[in-house]
């Protein structure tokens, strides 16, 4: 291990740290490798909230209540486009705040963010009773083009149709694509000046003067990043902090990291605004201050509590359409923790515990989206504490660390958005919503005619004309429709990401990453379970079509029973695997923007309700309009052999193709986990261990009784902090739409008899 060099100007800041390559170049991972403080004990060292934290938290809770009573939005800007410095400093109660910084000048006031699309911004304001300043309207329609305007200038008629008839839904063509994890610790470790210096060097080294498209784009982007870094300094200065140099104390480290995050949420209303992975990093700073006697455990906890409190306050104003898809104001401030390093050391540290403790100190909350990178080798004390928190609050999701670490080739990755892994230093994902696989099944049967809209949407092909569906005939027709979906989908995304880079470039996040990045081209699948069971029904169940007067298949009758996805039965599960690979292969034949590498996901968030609403009756007996099962979950009621059989079906979907995540939302009643708390914890630990060992990728765990949810639906005031995990994110139950609440209540809850 390298010693810190005496002549290094930053030595003061780095006093007490183990040296390494991280001193010579921007390399947070190496810093963590050299300085990691593992913790193998239990939660008994943790401290409760300070008085200041409790006072602040009560204020925030009261504001949230006011916000809910005001119909969802407390206050919103309508005449100031948000930038790093568009607003003066804002506070909850300045004297009590250890970590400062708000998106605007007032708590929970929402900023005006028109760059993704002015119409979206205007509709969002209008939905909550505000009106856009006419001047803003003029600027962003006449003078300054937005991302949304760019995309619609180039969309083809097929793309518009696919969007309109909802075979492809949720495309980020009118809002920020998000899913960028900034390497936030860079600010605390190096200070902004050093980061600017590195970016200037990168800029000098892009191209040799031959101005190709790629060189022009990257030089412009790095120039934007340098401006963003300078803007961050100004933003921090308005709060009285100089972040040009590294953080000297734990408090500064948390604050510097938070400023980096604040810069992101001040300027982008992305679909997901991840925090990344900061626990082992901050822990080094906290431990240094504890060792120096500068702080005690209570003060350490206070820093983490107040940092998390700020993450809970991030707000964007969004349209009602958007809320139908992603209900409850999610921002996916995803915070990834734990995991095991490439060298086999686990990364559990005391700050991982402190983050979980915030749920106890300040009550359960959906944000940040706490994600545990799970490996069998994590220490027992941590596994059990996490299980306990899951049982108490249902706020944790679990993801398979060894699967992701091996697939992405690094242990310094985080979860962007809900469940997708992303190398923090050098990876970025182009987010791409999802295609409706269940609807594609119906297009195959109906010759490309939309079953609800009754319009020719997919390629005009021969529909299935026989009374009973022949599997081979169906597959030929399905193949053709799926090729079309893949084509339209990928190319719509090519247009979207081109325009997003051009009109809504995320300089404030990307300035905290390497200049040369690896891009992932994310796509997604919805309705996988219903498509799978439909194909299985056709193959094994002898399915008869019932048509309406227009000849459109509106109902189906299976003569025989057939295997269903969710029972660990290869006959059905292999169909699911085949569908994922088939769509992936078809998409992979196309050009992908910016040399990105294709990936897909089986993940729906709450959009399973909307997708289901827009999809006709499917051959597996799911009625028109009924919600899809969420993510990669089996269809409701399909499971016959209990929870583990169901989990193992999901675990078979190959991560190799679905590298953006395969989400399973698991609901269980406390009594099903065991008769006492100790065995309940033990059951959860064994269950997660077993799932991961079988290559399961992601698990949302919800522990509560259906009756609790019913009561919460009837009396929301009794359950202000009841949170549920919904396919990749966490949400206050009270903030879901009635339909989504019904959907959550009707989901499979594994119950012991």
């Amino acid at each position, binding site marked *: 291990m390298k010693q810190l060099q005496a002549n290094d100007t930053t030595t003061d800041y780095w006093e007490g740290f183990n040296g390494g390559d991280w001193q010579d170049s921007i390399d947070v991972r190496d810093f963590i490798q050299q300085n990691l403080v593992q913790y193998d004990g239990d939660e008994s060292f943790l401290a409760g909230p300070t008085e200041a934290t409790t006072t602040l938290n009560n204020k925030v809770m009261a504001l949230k209540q006011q916000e809910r009573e005001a119909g969802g939005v407390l206050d919103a800007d309508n005449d100031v486009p948000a930038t790093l410095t568009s607003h003066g400093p804002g506070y909850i109660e300045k004297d009590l705040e250890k970590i400062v910084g708000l998106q605007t000048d007032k708590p929970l006031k929402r900023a005006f963010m028109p760059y993704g699309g002015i119409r979206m911004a205007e509709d969002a304001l209008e939905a909550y009773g505000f009106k856009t300043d006419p001047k803003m309207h003029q600027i962003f329609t006449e003078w300054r083009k937005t991302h949304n305007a760019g995309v619609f200038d180039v969309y083809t008629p097929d793309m518009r149709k696919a969007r309109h008839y909802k075979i492809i839904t949720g495309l980020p063509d009118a809002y920020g694509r998000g899913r960028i994890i900034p390497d936030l610790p860079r600010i605390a470790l190096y200070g902004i000046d050093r980061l600017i210096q590195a970016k200037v060097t990168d800029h000098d080294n892009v191209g040799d003067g031959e101005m190709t498209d790629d060189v022009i784009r990257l030089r412009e982007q790095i120039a934007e990043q340098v401006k963003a870094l300078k803007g961050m300094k100004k933003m921090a200065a308005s709060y009285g902090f100089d972040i040009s140099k590294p953080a000297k104390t734990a408090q500064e480290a948390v604050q510097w990291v938070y400023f980096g995050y604040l810069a992101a949420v001040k300027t982008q209303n992305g679909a997901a605004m991840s925090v990344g992975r900061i626990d082992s990093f901050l822990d080094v700073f906290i431990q240094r201050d504890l060792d120096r006697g500068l702080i005690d455990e209570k003060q350490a906890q206070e820093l983490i509590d107040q940092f998390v409190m700020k993450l809970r306050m991030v707000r964007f104003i969004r349209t009602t359409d958007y809320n139908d898809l992603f209900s409850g104001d999610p921002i996916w401030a995803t915070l990834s923790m734990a995991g095991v390093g490439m060298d086999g050391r686990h990364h559990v540290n005391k700050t991982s515990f402190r983050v979980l403790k915030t749920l106890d100190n300040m009550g359960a909350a959906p944000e940040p989206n706490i994600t545990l990178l799970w490996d069998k080798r994590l220490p*027992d004390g941590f596994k*059990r504490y996490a299980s306990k928190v899951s049982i108490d609050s249902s706020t944790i999701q679990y993801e398979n660390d060894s699967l992701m670490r091996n697939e992405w080739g690094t242990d310094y990755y985080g979860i962007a958005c809900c469940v997708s892994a992303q190398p923090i230093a050098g990876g970025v994902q182009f987010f791409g919503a999802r295609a409706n696989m269940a609807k594609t099944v119906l297009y195959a049967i109906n010759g490309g005619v939309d079953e609800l809209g009754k319009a020719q949407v997919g390629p005009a092909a021969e529909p299935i004309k026989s009374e009973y569906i022949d599997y081979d005939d169906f597959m030929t027709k399905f193949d053709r429709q799926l090729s079309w979906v893949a084509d339209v989908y990928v190319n719509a995304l090519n247009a979207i990401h081109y325009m997003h880079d051009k009109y809504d470039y995320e300089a404030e996040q990307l300035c905290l990453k390497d200049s040369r990045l690896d891009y992932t081209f994310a796509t997604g699948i919805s309705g996988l379970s219903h498509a799978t069971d439909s194909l299985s029904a056709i193959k094994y169940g002898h399915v008869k079509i019932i048509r309406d007067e227009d000849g459109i298949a509106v109902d189906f009758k299976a003569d025989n*029973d057939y*295997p269903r996805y969710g029972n*660990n*039965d*290869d*006959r059905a599960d292999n169909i699911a695997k085949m569908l994922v690979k088939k769509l992936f292969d078809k998409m992979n034949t196309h050009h992908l923007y910016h040399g990105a590498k294709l990936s897909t996901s089986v993940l729906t968030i709450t959009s399973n309700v909307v997708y289901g609403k827009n999809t006709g009756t499917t051959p597996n007996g799911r009625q028109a309009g009924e919600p899809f099962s969420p993510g990669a979950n089996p269809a409701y009621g399909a499971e*016959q*052999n*209990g*929870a*583990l*059989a169901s989990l*193992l079906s999901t675990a078979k979907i190959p991560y190799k193709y679905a590298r953006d995540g395969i989400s399973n939302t698991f609901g269980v009643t406390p*009594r*099903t*986990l*065991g*008769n006492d708390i*100790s*065995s*309940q*914890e*033990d*059951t959860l*630990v*064994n*269950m997660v*261990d*077993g*799932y991961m*060992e*079988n290559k399961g990728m992601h698990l949302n765990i919800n522990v509560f009784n259906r009756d609790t949810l019913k009561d919460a639906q009837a009396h929301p005031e009794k359950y202000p902090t009841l949170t549920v995990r919904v396919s990749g994110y966490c949400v206050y139950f009270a903030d879901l739409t009635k339909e989504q609440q019904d959907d959550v209540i009707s989901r499979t809850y*594994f*119950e*012991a*008899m």
Partner: protein
Amino acid sequence: MKIFEQEQSSVAVAENTTPIGYVHSIETFGSVDGPGIRYVLFLQGCRMRCQFCHNPDTWNQGVGDELTADQVLADAERYKAFWGKQGGITTSGGEALLQIDFLIDLFKKAHAKGIKTCLDTCGQPFTRKQPWFGKFEELMRYTDVSLVDIKQINPREHKRLTGWSNENIFDMLSYMLENNKHVWIRHVLVPQRTDFDTELIQIGNYIKTIAPIVDKVEVLPYHTMGVSKYKELGIDYPLDGIEPPTQARVKNAEKLLHTTDYTNYKNYPNYPKA
């Protein structure tokens, strides 16, 4: 439901001598049916007619899916990663002991593979008569722990509640005590039927007499989740109108049965710290 149809083609046709199990259903995620996470095999057939039975669909004998021990274990082993150090397979029912030949084959083969076995029984078929008793002794050699219900202490009341006397059940527990076969004792708490202090005290006293083999005592509150099955089967529900016991009554029963005195289950391999 058809259970693992996909395997039947790949497994050789069982020889005539291989016992066949009649299986009602499988629960892959049993966490209240013995130590740890368990693969629970609900076997078909029971002679008791307990008024509070929540599985009346398992009463009939000789029906259900026909499976060999090899087939069951091949399926169960797919869930091995979930079992940790304590989990394994549990046979329940119905009354598992009615298929004792199958159980012997299953548990013997499970042990050969290092799989932990748990027998959930009400003891009704127990007898010291041969050849059954010899078989039972063999089965016990391959059984790690048994879950035994004490439904009623009083033989006459027991008969009224279940249709059968309980004398042979206590005899089975005596055998287990003599041979150091460990058990979890369970009592289903049904208001107006099995929730009387005098009887709970008697049960508590009885358990003390077999304390060396009792690793855990559980009070299982009666629930109404089985009601719909009675409707489906067209059987009158014997406990119509009886509600689950209150939390206070459950606590009372736990006190009278001294549940906290029986903690040996915590000493099982790798049992977690409380």
